[in-house]
């Protein structure tokens, strides 16, 4: 399964990337919205782990663009603050799930498995 992590926190993205790779996922990382979209152009991913707050592009904007270009790609939102409001909004825009940071890794894995296309 191909996963793309889009998060401007490089350390976070890198660590998550490492941990998922250990679990035999094919993982790439991007550190901005633009970078993420470019990576997806390069090779499509099954699931995108998308941060809500990024310097160049809002997570929701990214989601909107992605839904247009590659509607088959699943998106799991990671929100940095306690409110689920933005997450709920992402769900209405086509995201598959949202998780609150700091993410519980086990929960993340479960969500990925649940979201993954059969």
């Amino acid at each position, binding site marked *: 399964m191909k996963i793309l992590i889009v998060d401007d*926190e490089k350390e976070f993205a890198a*660590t998550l990337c490492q*941990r998922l790779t250990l679990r035999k996922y094919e993982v790439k990382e991007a550190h901005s919205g633009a970078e993420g979209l470019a990576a997806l152009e390069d090779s499509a991913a099954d699931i995108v782990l998308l941060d809500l707050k990024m310097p160049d592009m809002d997570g929701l904007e990214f989601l909107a663009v992605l839904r247009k270009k590659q509607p088959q790609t699943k998106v799991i939102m990671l929100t*940095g*603050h*306690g409110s689920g*409001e933005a997450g709920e909004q992402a769900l209405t825009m086509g995201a598959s799930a949202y998780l609150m940071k*700091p*993410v519980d890794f086990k929960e993340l894995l479960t969500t990925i498995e649940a979201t993954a296309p059969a």
Partner: protein
Amino acid sequence: MQKKSFIARMLPDSGVTSSAGVQEHRYRQFFRSFTIILLVLVLVPMSVIALLSYSQYKRLLEEEEVNHLLLSAEQAEDSVARFIVKLRAIINFAGHDDRYHELLQPSTLNQLFARLQKSFPDFTDIEVISPAGKTVAYQGNYVSEPRDYTNELWYQQTLKSGFYISSLFQGFRGISHFVVAIARKMPAEPGKTAAENNRYWVMRVNIDGNTLQRYVESTGAIAADDIFLIDHNRMVQTIPRRYGQRGEISPYLAGKGLNKAMTAAVTAHREALTSAITIDIQHIPDKKRGNLQVLRATVPVSGSPWQLVMIKEFYTYSPQWLGFRNRLLFYFICCGGLAVMVIIVISRAITNHIHDNESKRQQLLLEAEHSDKLASIGRLAAGVAHEINNPLAIISQKAGLMEDYMEITTDFEHKDELAKALAGIDQSVDRCKTITHRLLGFARHTDIKGEEIAINTLLQEVAAFVEREASYSQITIVFSLADGLPKIFSDRGQLQQVFLNILNNAIDAINDKQKQSRQQSKATDNVDTPGGKRGGTITITTEEICLLTDSKKRTSGVLVKISDSGTGMSKETLKYLFEPFYTTKKAGKGTGLGLSISYGIIQKLGGSIEVASQPGEGAQFTFTLPVTNEPQTESEENRA
């Protein structure tokens, strides 16, 4: 310094900075100046009007008085003058020029006297005096010695002007009378020169003084308080009713001048008057009324040596004037008193109104300041929480990664210890996560899930959670729930969180009180009750209320009161109660976030929390919640 307007200076200072004592002083000052201004505004015009009507009426009366006296005096003078003219006519007729010799006959004189007495009973005698000045005939009530009048003043005057009228005098017979005399030319005797023929005989008549008295009394008796005659020596000729004695010198010299109004009235009449009337004011000592002020009119009676004096008491003694003055005074005092009372009441009401409004405003200001402070603390907390969340996520993932590698690595020295350390990191991250999420919750970053809620049921459900714990400490939870409360549209989970938090605090407070009383009973060696006083009550009350929304609309809402019989709180604690991280619990027992989160939630749900408490008296939390909640729109920064 900025100049303040008069009104601004008068109004009490609205500054929050002034102390209560200064404020009270300012309100008193305001009350005083306001009252004084109103009093001046009302009493001054009132006094002016009263004084004006007083002086106007006084002026009118004065004019009236003078007019009346002038007319009466003139009438009286006229009447007396007519009498004298009549008297003179009669005597002139009786003493016809050529009757001299006729009258020397006693029978003729007797007849004449009888005729005269018939029409004038006051004629007391009649005397014929020869040109030589000697009595030649006499007829009258008294026996008269023949006398020689040649050197007497009246005789000489009679000869000079042909007619003489004397002042009243007490004759040698002790009866008051006056004399009228006429001089007549002797009948011409043939053979004598014109100069020799130019001789005059005199007829002298004595008249009873009472005639004059009757006459004077019948004239103008109604118009004046007194009327009498005086002669040129100011000797009183008739009997005055009150002011003086007949035969005495009238004691009243020219008196005080008239005032403006009176002089004007006299001047206005001057042209119409035929006689030379003078009017003045006299002050006469009076036994009853002290110094009596009277108006005196003096008019010379034409054809006589007399002056008519008419006296009228000043209008100030008339019941008309006294009545007017008393009524005016009465109304003035009544109206003035009423005005003063009303003004004081109004001033007090206005002062109190301003006072109340000002205190309410200051109260609101303080509340606004407080909630503003809480809001900014909330924003700060949310910012901090958000910033910490990111590194926390990294720490969590790094630790996770290490655990991942540990799992796929064969055993090495201290592997177990390392695993334990990583687990410790995980636990700490979880604790941090709880705190950051709560902080974000306080800053209203949580959602509202709207649904219809029966508040009574919700409270009972929440109470059920803590029932077991409460029963350990023998705490009774008493419900006093209103029937038929409207269902509210709100977030069930969050309300549960709030009420659970309050109930837990209440139980803690009661437990603390129990501990305190146990310690006290230990200290007093009270062996009988080793457990101390146990038990306590939590009362939950609900009722329907009316709420005012921000846009001043009325909506219905519910009120929830939760009171406990716990330790209560000090003023200091109440001040910081809703601030994050403020706790009175022992370290490790509370985060100090419970009430601040509750505050945030209730605010978000459009309601309010109030606390009333005193140390040792328990605490009472009052919540209001609107029936319909319009969720507040999230600001941009919260969305990101």
